[in-house]
């Protein structure tokens, strides 16, 4: 069975009252990239995953997990 990378980016972002554009600006990417990561369309690099986790005040493991 294929593995899927899931995340709670959207939940955490809305919890902190951030828009996609604001989060994108914080981590230095376009809103499109945040959108694709949120929707699970794009698997981010380790660098981007760490930046996103830092911006959302979580650890990478809390933000992303693998579903088998």
């Amino acid at each position, binding site marked *: 069975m294929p593995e899927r990378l899931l995340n709670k980016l959207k939940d955490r972002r809305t919890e902190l009252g951030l828009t996609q554009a604001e989060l994108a600006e914080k981590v230095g*990417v*376009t809103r*499109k*990239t945040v959108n694709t990561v949120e929707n699970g369309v*794009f698997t981010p690099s380790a660098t981007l995953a760490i930046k996103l986790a830092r911006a959302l005040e979580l650890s990478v493991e809390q933000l992303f997990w693998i579903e088998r």
Partner: protein
Amino acid sequence: MNSYLAGVLVGIGAVLLAAAIAKLRSRRLPGSVAEKAEVLSKRRARMLPPLAAIFLAQQASYFSTPATTAPRTVDTVKISAWLLLSIVLLAALATKGFWFHSKEVRDLIDDENTRANRNHAMRSGFLFAMGAGVCVYVLTMFEPVTAREAVHIMMSAGIATALIQWGFLERRAYQDA
């Protein structure tokens, strides 16, 4: 004047005109780097499929002239313009594009997801170019194909596929936004 040179000049003129229009339109862009990148990135997603269509439509002018007859002046002009457009599109595919904007905007537009989409599109373009090469190879067993025709087919297949694929991926990236 040599008609091929005239075609190249027409192509250069078209590129300069497009650059001037892009520069004028960029004056109306919003202030911050992030906002500019957002607008330009969306514009690119919209423009890629029509660009591929224009590029493919140009093939008609090439293949409407039989290889056995000498091309008319108008055809050589179109072929040269096609070559220049191919070079510009290849450069846009291989680099960050948006050459007339600031480095900050260009760096942001070419972020991780864009690079991944671009690499995916380039891979598809390469595979289609090779596939076209195989088809041309088989075709030569039945029909004579000139070297220029073969190169033309392979370049067109590769570039058009990469443009369409990139456009599709960029549009998909904006869905559910």
